[in-house]
């Protein structure tokens, strides 16, 4: 009985990890955002849209934004600096997006440092996802 429970637990947790939805991720970031800021008042797609296109001057002298690689229309394929195609970042065009929490964290971890030269806060991550899942 105990064994069965353990096995069931494993199956449930793995399928659960695989089957995350963007909404699940938003909930996780919401919990984090509340911890980071007691005045947290929800995520905003509008703020996310501005964040997505906001250009800043990188210390290497290049202007960068999320849209540098993802293009300004998140339904389009993008391109890395090394000429590799990036599948669309908006779930409407690519349903795989924001369904794997570890993958999402990995890329926020890298790309926030590439664009902002710092880590993103949970508010920014949530706004970003909120914007992208609203893109129709």
């Amino acid at each position, binding site marked *: 009985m105990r064994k069965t429970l353990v096995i069931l637990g494993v199956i449930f947790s793995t399928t659960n990890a695989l089957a995350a939805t963007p909404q699940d991720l938003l909930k996780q970031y919401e919990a984090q955002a509340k911890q980071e800021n007691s005045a947290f008042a929800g995520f905003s797609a509008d703020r996310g849209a501005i964040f997505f296109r906001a250009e800043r001057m990188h210390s290497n002298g290049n202007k960068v934004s999320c849209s540098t690689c993802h293009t300004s229309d998140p339904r389009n394929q993008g391109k*890395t600096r*090394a000429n*590799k195609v990036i599948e669309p970042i908006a779930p409407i065009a690519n349903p795989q997006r924001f369904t794997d929490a570890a993958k999402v964290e990995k890329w926020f*971890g890298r790309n926030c440092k590439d664009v902002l030269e710092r880590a993103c806060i949970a508010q920014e991550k949530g706004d970003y996802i909120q914007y992208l899942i609203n893109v129709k």
Partner: protein
Amino acid sequence: MKKWMQFLVLIGSITSTSVLLASGDMKGGGQLPAVSNVKWKSECSSCHMLYHPGLLPERSWSKMMSGLDQHFGENATLDAATRDEIMRFLALNSADKQDNRRSKRISQSIPATDAPLRITETRYFTSKHDEVSPLTFKRKSIGSASNCIACHKNAEKGDFAESQIRIPR
């Protein structure tokens, strides 16, 4: 020597030379051997083409994998377990561990005190590409000299055979 004998010797030497040349081209495999590792494949090809471990010596890979936070100007950090697994794979199949002709020549073209991170900076690469103009590499269809696959369509499999080269307009 009779005329017909001279002729036979001539034919014989031409045949053996061409056989030698052909085998020289193939000996130990002119191309890099097929290698595979799931993490290497997925992690090392999300931003750029997949580079075969046999294109650089172990000391280069080691330097690269310990500086992933500054990977050619981008942050490419991995969790420690993934990084270590990929490093073991790269080391095992690196140019200085390979038996094929191309890897050996790449290895030999790098001074022992150097650990280049760019394949394009090895003497082997520059001598092989000295007839390609910098402007050709800058074409939109190519991007840069690092994008092997633009002209060597089977580059990700380690196949850089001369006969497979097609330089896009």
